[in-house]
């Protein structure tokens, strides 16, 4: 890259076609733009940027992948993953498995948890390259102009995904549009920018990483910290023209960013790992305690919000099993209790990144399917008494109905379900997204196709 042609600037600095236009642009530098003396950080440089870059290169694909898996876990084949219409961005669809039972807990926990933990790294990466935003000329060729455009997708995309994700897990819908749809399409814009940036900058990043030894760098204290050497021919250098005296070493900067990530990890891991760690999530909705009774665990929709009264869950409650027979099977609480009971320890995991493991007891869904006359259904459609809201119903795939641990639960931790947890009966199934663990069940329709 440092090859020079007849004494001219190296290739990277070369102007493309039409050269006079790009040169004219370069001459019209507004005050403050370009590699001015205002940029003074003594530690900005290609190595530091490359370190942040490689961390994101390795970890962000995991956030992307788990996010897309969470979309698939919602069951797009039943029209219950949002957005319903994805156009050409349709993912390969498959029946979401029930094993391991912690699968959805893992994917959503990683997506939200890792996404939060990476926020300080993203901020640091942006800080490390921000002089390039004010570079002048902004572009020297059509290639650079297009690449800059792709950076809009990259940086706009990651900021948009962080902002909408962070707001969603805290029930703050200030943005006023459908979260799922925006987060899904925003993700694809980001993926476009990310893949492009990674492809174009990988050689540059590897060069940057090789330019210094990480192990050696970790032994350099503040007193010995000097700026990275700047290649005078490199027009894209991040190294300051007139660096200030360092106030933090490079290893110190890495420690600050890593410390920030650690702080976020401590403040958010508890909402999905639970147990003794849960109270550590002091600033998140799901670090809070509801008490220590058998029914005292996280709720994601109150009976009041769902329009459920205690009377609706009382003696008058009936469960309707539909299977295409002319007369549906109707069960009351007593007849449900007379059926074989099964107990399973299963996580209740939400796409918002929290989960909790409880011991559930109830009737197996496959026993109900057999009772309704379709012992091997292709799917089951569950409805709730709940009014308003997008999740008063859910469709389960065959595996989710037939798994021996899939229950219409009536009790949790040895006690009847509380009204807030869906009394008298709710769905709980292994690896099923929490939002499909329908509460206050009114009917289940077993389908042959």
């Amino acid at each position: 890259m440092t090859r020079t042609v007849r004494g001219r600037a190296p290739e990277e600095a070369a102007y493309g076609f039409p050269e006079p236009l790009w040169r004219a642009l370069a001459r019209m530098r507004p005050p403050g733009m370009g590699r001015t003396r205002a940029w003074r950080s003594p530690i900005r440089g290609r190595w530091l940027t490359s370190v942040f870059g490689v961390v994101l290169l390795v970890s962000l694909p995991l956030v992307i992948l788990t996010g897309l898996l969470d979309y698939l876990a919602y069951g797009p084949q039943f029209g219950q993953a949002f957005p319903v219409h994805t156009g050409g961005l349709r993912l390969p669809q498959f029946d979401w498995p029930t094993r391991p039972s912690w699968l959805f807990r893992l994917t959503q926990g990683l997506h939200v948890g890792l996404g939060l933990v990476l926020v300080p790294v993203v901020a640091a990466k942006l800080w490390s390259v921000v002089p390039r935003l004010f570079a002048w000329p902004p572009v020297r060729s059509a290639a650079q102009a297009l690449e800059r455009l792709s950076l809009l997708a990259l940086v706009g995309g990651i900021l948009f995904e962080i902002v909408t994700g962070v707001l969603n897990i805290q029930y703050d819908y200030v943005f006023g549009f459908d979260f799922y749809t925006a987060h899904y399409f925003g993700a694809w814009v980001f993926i476009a920018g990310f893949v492009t940036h990674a492809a174009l900058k990988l050689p540059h990043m590897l060069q940057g990483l090789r330019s210094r030894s990480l192990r050696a760098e970790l032994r350099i204290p503040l007193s010995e910290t000097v700026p990275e050497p700047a290649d005078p021919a490199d027009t894209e250098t991040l190294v300051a023209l007139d660096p200030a005296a360092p106030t933090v070493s490079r290893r110190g900067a890495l420690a600050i960013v890593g410390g920030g990530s650690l702080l976020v990890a401590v403040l958010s891991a508890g909402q999905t790992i639970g147990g003794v760690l849960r109270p550590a999530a002091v600033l998140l909705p799901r670090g809070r305690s509801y008490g220590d009774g058998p029914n005292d665990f996280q709720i994601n929709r109150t009976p009041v919000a769902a329009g459920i009264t205690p009377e609706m869950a009382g003696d008058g409650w009936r469960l309707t099993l539909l299977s295409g027979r002319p007369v549906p099977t109707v069960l009351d609480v007593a007849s449900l209790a007379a059926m074989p009971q099964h107990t399973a320890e299963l996580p209740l995991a939400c796409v918002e990144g929290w989960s909790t493991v409880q011991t559930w007891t109830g009737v197996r869904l496959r026993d109900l399917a057999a009772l309704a006359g379709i012992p091997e259904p292709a799917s089951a459609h569950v409805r709730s008494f709940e009014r308003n809201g997008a999740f008063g119903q859910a469709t389960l795939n065959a595996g989710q109905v037939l798994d021996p641990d899939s229950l219409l639960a009536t009790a949790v931790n040895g006690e009847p379900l509380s009204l807030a947890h869906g009394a008298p009966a709710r769905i709980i199934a292994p690896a099923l997204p929490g939002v499909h663990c329908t509460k206050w069940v009114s009917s289940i329709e077993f389908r042959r196709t």
Partner: protein
Amino acid sequence: MRYLRRLYGAHPLHLVVVLGCLALAGHAALGTRVNPGWMLMAIWFAVALVAHDLVLFPAYASADRLLVGTFGARGVNYVRIPLLGSALTFALFWPGIVRQGADTYLAATGLTQEPYLARWLLLCAIMFAVSALVALVNAARHAARRR
């Protein structure tokens, strides 16, 4: 090939990758035509970019310069680090701290956002206190070494 490179400013493969990126991003943007509306999405993208690049960055960079000027190279990190921790936690958890989205929060959890502001302030206080303690210990060690 060399002529093409000169003209465009990079290897033709660069063009393929970048056009692929723009096509995918454009296709995703088309998906938002009806819901939530591409205009609204574009505004949020733009606001996020401007808020970070032209508001947040200049603000924290100036604040940092002010801090370095006030506390000097030796003292600045004892203020800078707890301040960064406070800013990071505020940025991530502000809906709870300023009680935004109170209705949806209540409908979902059955609880209010009442405790968060006090908890966040306490967390900030702890970070500053720990930092002050470390500063004191370091100052004492420094003084002892001098003697």
